[in-house]
């Protein structure tokens, strides 16, 4: 580093100084808001600590408790995984279908784009409250409509088996956010490819599978990672609507972490939980990243 510095010209050195100066707010922020918290969480996860007294080193006890005798850890991990498995594929596929429709060159599509994107900008709290009311078992819209066709609607958020799917359905309502990203990807596909395929006699179906989908894989990949991280972090809905219930059916991992840390003040154990979720999210991301070489297609 120093030898490198000596080899630089005066102008280069001045540039480098200005560059570092410009970056300094971010570097400071990185130290305080990323490096310190991650390292500290790692340390706290080996302690017993209730905020009142200083942390006490207990070695691997938190992890041993987590993996061997914590039914809540298991059930919250299960609920979260189930939510990810339910909502993620649906969101990715429906988002793509919606984007394909919105990409049609037909007058008035802008209006539809605006409509479908609205749910994606509303806060999780407002959406949750709206959906509590929307899915009321007796007077809610959905069950009323179902009753018109002679179907007795479920108890949605208030039913042990339906609560988690209900939260997943609610999250799919926000599919417009994904659709907008796909739309940007679709509009980046050069039109001449479609024209060439048309001349070669490829029908719409073939054009989709041979041109649209392969060229959209980078967007799909990006979207998959973003949505994956997001789905694991499900929290607000559980907090506002179900309080993790009924019978812990929607007791998601982050909600468990929140209660452990900021209700029970078991900061040490909660740190271990936080670190575990970070590792789960990171390994899922790395896994997707590793497989990407096989299915993500880059033009150049």
């Amino acid at each position, binding site marked *: 580093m120093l030898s490198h510095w000596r080899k630089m010209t005066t102008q280069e050195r001045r540039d480098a100084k200005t560059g570092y100066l410009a970056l300094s707010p971010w570097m400071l922020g990185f130290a305080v808001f990323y490096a310190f918290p991650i390292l500290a969480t790692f340390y706290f996860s080996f302690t017993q600590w209730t905020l009142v007294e200083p942390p006490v080193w207990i070695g691997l006890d938190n992890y041993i408790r987590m993996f061997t005798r914590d039914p809540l850890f298991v059930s919250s991990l299960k609920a979260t995984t189930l939510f990810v498995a339910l909502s993620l594929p649906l969101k990715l596929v429906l988002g793509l279908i919606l984007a394909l429709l919105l990409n049609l060159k037909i007058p008035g599509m802008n209006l539809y784009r605006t409509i479908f994107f609205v749910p994606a900008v509303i806060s999780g709290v407002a959406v949750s409250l709206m959906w509590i009311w929307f899915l009321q078992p007796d007077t809610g819209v959905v069950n009323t409509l179902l009753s018109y066709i002679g179907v007795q609607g479920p108890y949605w958020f208030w039913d042990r088996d339906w609560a988690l799917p209900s939260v997943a359905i609610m999250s799919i309502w926000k599919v417009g956010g994904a659709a907008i990203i796909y739309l940007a990807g679709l509009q980046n596909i050069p039109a001449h490819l479609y024209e060439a395929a048309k001349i070669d006699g490829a029908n719409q179906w073939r054009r989709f599978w041979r041109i649209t989908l392969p060229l959209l894989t980078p967007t799909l990949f990006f979207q998959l990672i973003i949505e994956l991280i997001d789905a694991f972090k499900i929290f607000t809905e559980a907090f506002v609507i179900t309080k993790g219930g009924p019978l812990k059916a929607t007791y998601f991992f982050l909600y468990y972490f929140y209660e452990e840390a900021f209700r029970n003040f078991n900061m040490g154990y909660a740190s271990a939980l936080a670190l575990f979720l970070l590792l789960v*999210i990171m390994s899922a991301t790395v896994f997707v990243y590793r497989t990407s070489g096989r299915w993500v297609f880059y033009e150049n």
Partner: protein
Amino acid sequence: MRTDLARPELGLTPAQQRRRSAARRRAKRLIAHAFVYIVMTLLAFIFLLPIFWMVSTSLKLPQEIFAWPPDWIPANPQWGNYEEAFTKYPLARYMFNSAILVVANIVGGLVSVPVIAYGFARFDFPFKHVLFLLMLSTMMVPGHIKLIPLFWLYQRLGLIDTCWPLILPAFFGNPFFIFLMTQYMRTIPRELDDAARIDGAGSWGILIRILIPLCRPALTVVVVFTFVWVWNDFLEPIIFLRDYDSFPISVGLAFFQGRYSVEWNLFMGATLVSILPILIVYFFAQRHLIGGLASIGIKG
């Protein structure tokens, strides 16, 4: 072409044949368009149903709320419900709190992000590439991992139950915005910098007088996204704020549910009011967002 070969129409001149097939194509397209419109309208109707139901409920009399079968549109819209919601819940206060947080975060972003991006976009220095990758990787770090150490830190600094924990990070640059702004600045020709330098501008003068005015689309993204994120944020305020009077609207809204007997007509009115600022910002900003976001180019 192929359709003509497939269905040779005998007894017609080539010109007549062409006209007929053109008419048939037009009719086919019209039917396809009509089909798309029907599908999109139906979908839009389903998407807007929860919002429609919220609006409808907010205008009902208390005895109409649980009526069965429900009235889709209240016979006698009670506009006074909104006034009552404002007097019954401290809506105005919570929205004011949110507005302060939004403004402070926007100021933080506008001050820090262009400076940091300038360092990445315009200067060369050792480890720049590594630092940029590090910055990008922090985008993937889920926020929950920071909560316990930061809670500890803020408690030591006496900042719990003040708005500082919700404002300070913005002044150190959000990685997504830094990335966006860096990419955007890179599209601005360096010749402009050089010309200003010849005219006697220093490094910071170039940033302030040349680059920042040209980065307006990217700055718009910073402003709008900050608005939406801060307005909707829930997890951090419930952890760092204790006092009911200092809650932002998202938290306030969630707590109405527990603290007041739920009068759903007033409550849905309050929910609607809480999302109005977001909807207004979104409708005005959506046209300007595309240019700012396009520079990311979601390609790897």
